């Protein structure tokens, strides 16, 4: 069934992907992409997908595969936003400002309600900064940490070096670092993980890498109002938190604790090869061979059901 839908989608001239630029009040250009099948209407709110820090739209749509098109094939209208520092958006030098970009995107969309899919550390920022926005109906959080903790030796080294994905692409050592942090013990369609590293990532700016490292070392990130931990904890949005055991960049032990502190708003689903075909890493949760079979249906089901 999935294969048939994918074929229809690939062959369908009705899929439209449009791009627009959205400017923030401080004059940073954000990139907003809309995926829609012409002539298809749905009662469900649109879904907005936000990539991880240093990732681009390609995390959700890489060479015609990914969650964006998968959800569109099921009748949803999908947006992917690249916030400052991501993909084709303008430069980002502040993590807190990135979290605030979501508000600008929602204003530009002019929607009453929307569902959110977020990934990793960017997800934490976006949720913390917009925890009470009434336009957000439900949240899917993919390996999204509540607590920051001192990173692994390798993650620390990567961030101390400025979070330069471009430096990883050219050497076996760099490829190993990318593998251990983002894609270990994962199966990908041929060439996807390396291809994504080359074309789907963007270097963090040095200030952002330093802020992320400080956030990890200090355990929390202060915001203008509250902090990431306090604001995520207080979020009442129905949330499905999906965790991959093999995530080396946002380890599951940083994320799972959100469920306990959420007063019931956060439901948890963890993956390991004990029961599924894959442990899932940071990247394979979105672009891995088994993501469409195991992860995506859970996303769709949570967004589609009458009550979360």
């Amino acid at each position: 069934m999935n294969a048939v839908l994918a074929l229809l989608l690939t062959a369908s001239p009705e899929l439209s992907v449009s791009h627009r630029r959205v400017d923030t009040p401080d004059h940073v250009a954000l990139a907003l992409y809309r995926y829609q099948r012409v002539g298809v209407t749905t009662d469900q709110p649109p879904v907005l997908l936000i990539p991880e820090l240093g990732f681009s739209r390609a995390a959700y749509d890489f060479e015609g595969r990914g969650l964006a098109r998968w959800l569109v094939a099921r009748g949803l209208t999908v947006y992917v936003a690249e916030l400052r520092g991501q993909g084709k958006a303008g430069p980002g030098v502040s993590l807190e400002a990135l979290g605030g970009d979501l508000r600008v995107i929602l204003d530009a969309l002019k929607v009453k309600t929307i569902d959110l899919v977020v990934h990793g550390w960017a997800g934490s920022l976006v949720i913390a900064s917009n925890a009470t926005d009434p336009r957000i109906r439900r949240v899917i959080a993919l390996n999204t940490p509540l607590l920051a903790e001192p990173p692994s030796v390798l993650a620390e080294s990567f961030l101390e070096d400025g979070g330069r994905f471009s430096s990883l692409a050219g050497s076996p050592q760099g490829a190993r670092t990318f593998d251990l942090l983002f894609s270990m013990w994962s199966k990908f369609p041929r060439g996807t993980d390396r291809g994504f590293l080359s074309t789907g990532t963007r270097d963090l700016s040095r200030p952002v890498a330093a802020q992320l490292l400080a956030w990890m070392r200090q355990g929390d990130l202060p915001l203008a109002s509250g902090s990431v931990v306090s604001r995520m904890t207080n979020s009442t949005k129905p949330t499905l938190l999906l965790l991959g055991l093999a995530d080396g960049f946002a380890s599951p032990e940083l994320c799972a604790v959100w469920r306990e502190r959420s007063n019931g708003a956060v439901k948890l689903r963890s993956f390991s090869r004990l029961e599924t075909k894959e442990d899932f890493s940071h990247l394979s949760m979105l672009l891995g061979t088994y993501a469409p079979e195991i992860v995506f249906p859970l996303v769709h089901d949570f967004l589609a059901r009458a009550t979360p």
Partner: protein
Amino acid sequence: MKRVLLLLLLGGCANLRVVPLPKEAERHRPKTADGWELSLVRYRAVGPATGRPVLLCHGISANERNMDLDDEHSMARWFASQGREAWTMSVRATGDSDRPDPSKGRTLPIRFDHYWQYDLPTAIEHVRKVSGADAIDYAGHSMGGMIAYAYLSQGGQGLHAVATMGSPTRLDWGTGLEQLIRTLGPAVVSDDIILPSQFGAQLSAPLQTLVDDGPFQRFFYNPESTKPETWQRLVVYGTADTAGGAAKQLLTLVETSRFTSADGKVDFRADMARIRTPVIVVAGKLDRVAPSSAVKDGYRALGGPKRWLLITRANGALGEYGHMDLVIGERAPDEVFRPVLDFFNQHEPPRTH
């Protein structure tokens, strides 16, 4: 075809012998306050003692040989080689410890509570008495660490510093397996039985090296860190039958997410905040029995001082670790035992000469 199968089976049987303990192993049998003799094995420190004795305790469905499998895979002998007198123990009804015998007053059920209320205090007191140490260090794998959490959380004395390895304090992590456990667990497990897990494991032993990436590998160990032959030896003589009462009590970690006494009145996790004994909490990145989230939950509950150690290639290990790799892994001496010993040493007062 039959010949091929026979050859494969014979090949699989090559490691099926029990490697006996070396001659320097001293056997001890202290008796608990409720009448069970426990099997303890002592290794004296090689050379001058460099610190206090270390007591090592296995996990569920296991015995003392988990910590002392053979010459090359022995946390006990490694600690002894580093100048630490080392002891292994088997909790009641495992290894060479007493089995249930109603005629001698040793009755079922055996619960997790018996381990921390009777077995661990007995072992600690015996090691202190024999060695003359005022307090000892302790390393527990999986349930062995949970026993220490329960014991210390209720004011248990005599432990100077502790290491827990792959020890969860909750197991409700939203996996599909949990629903199966919730459904089947109560049907399979009850207070008045001993689950024949040792027999089952031994029955599977000849096949252990023949199946690559099978359920045992996925569940228990990572061939990146433990050779299948090593795992096979553990299956042959490192496993034990499982007390239904203990299994039932630990099922609550899945069913209710609570880590409590059998009657539910004592909340170990809440009381762990009172623990002031230094604890190093070790987790394996690819531990699918006690995932890092489940182990970290215990770390967070501890009062401190405490240290978190995640064994993963991203932290310098040469391979990822599953549940059993933490104690029988080929590189465990360097990647697990060494940091544990360093932690123990850090919490030693300076030695005066």
